[in-house]
């Protein structure tokens, strides 16, 4: 029995929790060690899920991953996260290589924009080919928040948390642009 519990514990620790993006413009950050993650997805096909690993392992599901351009706002524990897996459908998935280029960080109490995952897919003789890149579209993300989450945006500062350094959102928050 104790081995079964151990096995469950091990399996559970590797599992990602399904999450859904925040829909209501209400500040839901209650814990001090958490922050908001804003992630853009611009994909030529709908996706089944994407997995992020970090202080929390989470799975963003197909409900937020329809074809086209979308933004996903989540409240997560602060820390560094990596994109580790993309499931295109029930039958196709890929593990992400070069993870250092797919890493972003969440600072507590802030809105952290990670970038837009641009995914271009193509079917070729029953195989799925794809290209993906994490593009920093900070100003578009800011427009999204202004339109859809003005309350959260007015109560929290916003910063770029994706690969590389970019002060634009931070300067906007400080009203020093």
């Amino acid at each position, binding site marked *: 029995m104790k081995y079964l519990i151990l096995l469950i514990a091990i399996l559970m620790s590797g599992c990602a929790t399904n999450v859904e993006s925040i829909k209501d413009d209400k500040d839901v950050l209650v814990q001090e060690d958490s922050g908001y993650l804003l992630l853009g997805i611009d994909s030529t096909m709908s996706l089944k899920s994407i997995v992020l690993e970090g202080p929390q392992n989470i799975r963003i599901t197909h409900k937020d991953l329809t074809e086209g351009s979308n933004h996903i706002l989540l409240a997560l524990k602060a820390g560094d996260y990596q994109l580790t897996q993309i499931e295109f459908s029930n039958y196709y998935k890929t593990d992400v290589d070069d993870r250092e280029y797919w890493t972003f960080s969440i600072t507590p109490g802030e809105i952290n924009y990670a970038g837009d995952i641009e995914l271009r897919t193509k079917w070729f003789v029953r195989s799925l080919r794809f290209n993906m890149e994490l593009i920093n*579209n900070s100003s578009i993300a800011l427009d999204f928040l202004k339109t859809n989450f003005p309350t959260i945006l007015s109560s929290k500062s916003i910063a770029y948390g994706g690969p590389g350094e970019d*002060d634009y959102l931070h300067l906007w928050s400080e009203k020093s642009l």
Partner: protein
Amino acid sequence: MKQFFVACCIFIYSSIAQAGLIDSQKLLTAPEYAQFALSPDGDNVTYIQRAAKSYLIVNYNVKEEAAVAVKNVHHSNMLLDKYWINNDVLFFELEGKRFDHSFIAKKTQSGKFKEVRLDKYWTVIRGYKGDGKHILISEWKRNTQYQVSLVQIESLFSHQRPKKKVLFTSNYGDGYMFYESSVDQLIGYKSEEKEVTVSSRSLEGSKWVPLLTMNFEERDFFAPIGFLDNRTMVVLSNRDSDKISVYKYSLDDKKISGLIYGNNTYDVTDARIEEGRVVSVTYMKHGKPHHEYLSKEREAFKGRLSKELEGQVLTTLDIDQDRNSYLLHASSPTHAGTWYHFNSVDNKFTRLISAYEELESYKLASTQLIKATSKDGIKLEGWLTQPRVNNRNTLIVMPHGGPIGVQDSNEFRHEIQLLANRGFTVLRVNFRGSSGYGKEFQKLGVGALGGEIESDILTVIDKVNEQYSFKHTCAMGASYGGYSSVMLAINESQRFDCVVAAYGIYDIPYLFSSSNFHGKEEFQSKIEGAVGSKEEASSKPSPVYLASKLNVPIFLIAGRRDYVAHFEHSNRFKQVLDMHNKDVETLFFKKVGHGQSQWYRQRQETLAVIDFLERKLNLPKLVPDSDDEKEILTRELIETAEMYYAEDVLLEPNYKLAMHFNKQAAEQGSAEGLYNLGLINQYGKGVETDLEQAREYFQQSSELGYRDAKVALAKMYFHGIGVERETDKVHDILDSITEITEHQQESLLRLMLYCQAPKSDKHQARCLDYPKDFVKKFEQGTIGTLARLIVSAETPQGVKDNLIKFVSELYEINDVKFKLNTRKMGTYVWSRHPGYGWRDKLVPVEDAEVTMDNTKQCYLEAFVDLEGFDGGKRTAAIMRWEAFKDGKLEDDSYTLYRGKTSKAWQYAVSMKEGATDLLYKVSVFNLHGELVDSFECNNN
């Protein structure tokens, strides 16, 4: 004695050339003629001739002065390559959707060409001449294995398996081999990580011999261009010099072994090797390609022809195998290019044709070289293009992109000629960092953005202002040129009156964090090679952070799919300019990358820029000198309006501007402009729907004879849209149409009219004859119209009976009366479900999990039950949807479903998104027009 024959038209052209307004459709368009090649015997020249939707590959026999078409190709299949294999056999390669297609065309005895398509796994190796009876191919076998073989040309046309002699297997891939006939060697090149390795082998030999290796990361330039002999290559390089020069390269010692040619001022761009000698070198002198001849015979030859083509740059494109016939190309800043054939035996010089024959009758704007020296002693070159007509006294300063390793030149440029033709003076400058002036000059530009580079530009402007004065000055550029234009206006606000910045970079630190891959070392080093070190990036001036200092109107142009200068640059700059309440207008294209790829869109973009300049500088509008000029300007207004009106061109259509341009066109008497205004009002694009206004515009356009407007107006009267139904008026309007070409909307309206309100026996007969004809041309529209006629109470019963008979016979309908056994009915939405790929299915709104869009569907899914046993019988149902607003019919549509009844029939109507006040009603009728069932759907 001068024996050259020069086509008289050159002289005639120069004496009667027009100086007026040039049609932008003639100027900003693909060349009509291109891709010329000379046959080995020098008697034939092939080229392509473009038409609207296709192009012809043509062969012109110079001796017989006769042209024949080799192949007519759809314009989407771009010509990738074309060359002669022997005197009678032509090779060409076309771009396909999945595979590219190679063809061999053979001249028959009648002079026409017979073609054969080659195996899709074959690649013809360029340059192999051999005995003239074979082609050398590489054939993909598996993974990276390619088989090199000789294929007998004749056998390709024999309808049997081609005769092929396999020589060896190689791992040099598709298109990575060519044959160098001067040394009878097959050359292969391979790219591996940071290196390109070049090797050679003879066809009889047993192995590849490495020749040289080139390193991508090497900052110095090194490019092999040919062979002097088996052991010596010719390379262009600046490893041992500041300027790119022509060197011998010893394949034995693997190093540069001697200088062949070097220039003190300019980088060499090309060299021509003939019979083991470098006979000429090319460099950009004062912005024009300059061919310097190293052989006395070639110098003399050039001297003879240059007298005939004064001021033009003459380039030898090809020479025949006996060295008697030449294919030549002449061009200049005011002339896009003309091809000539020269036979040195009889000294016959024949003008073939120009790239833009339609421009031959115009005199284009000439360009003047401006030389200046910067404060720190750098010698600079600039080019000033001045208008011949319509001078607007406005200087457009146009910095080039890059900024490193790119140069401007004094060659024919479509956009500059259009700006000059519309009265603008254009100045371009090769500032520090530009290519063509050596390594040191280029290095000076690294990290000099927003400072020394712009200072160079101002130095040249000062020089221009010593000679000329202008009322207005604007800066305009693309890519780095966009940045530079903004910085010029920020730093020198008193000297600039406006800015046009396209596809630009405006946030220097952002260059290093535009994408996750920009964090990679190779990307960072590439960016640093242009703008300086990453550490210093934040200290470089960035327009985004200096927006408050920009005090002139700015037009920002960008492409959402630009991955060179990411769209984010433009969008965040616009965001900050808005925060500072600056005068900013945008042209953000939805599907465009780093610049336009279609001539039509490029023309629209340039016309929008001209409009911006006119508005912001308060320039008086150009006054046309003739009806032709008036027509040109009016058509351009319509074209510009289309860009703003179209749904999928800009990120957000700008209906206000679409209306503005159409109104301007209408004021110029444009019937199309009036018609477009009618549509805007009828469909409420950017304005409230105003049917009375729409009718008025259609009426005015009709009075000017515009056919589409007549049809739109007639439809309003026939269906009673915004007016009382008046069929007599419809007859009058349709009778006034004189065009006889096919027009679907008009045809279907005539069918309705002649069936419901005929005025003569002829009309009655047409009611029954038209469907037979129309159904072959546009089946869906015709059947929808017949369905409407069958249901309509306005259609006489006798006519209905005949139409029902026609439809029954057409679709072999056995049974008419049915009942519906409904499975699903009501307001649904498409929901996406994962599976092997993804499936979309319609579900009730409340059950939707993942919706692709919020468009609701008024949906019916039902079995059709015929009376009695219905196995195998075919029936038909008329499906109608209607949309009502406040109980008033807004829109409707009819269609006919037909077939067997073994499966459920599905009918879905997309309801207008966001129009929550519309009530949709779906009705199902049998083929007799009797109502079977109906239901309503809410759109809220």
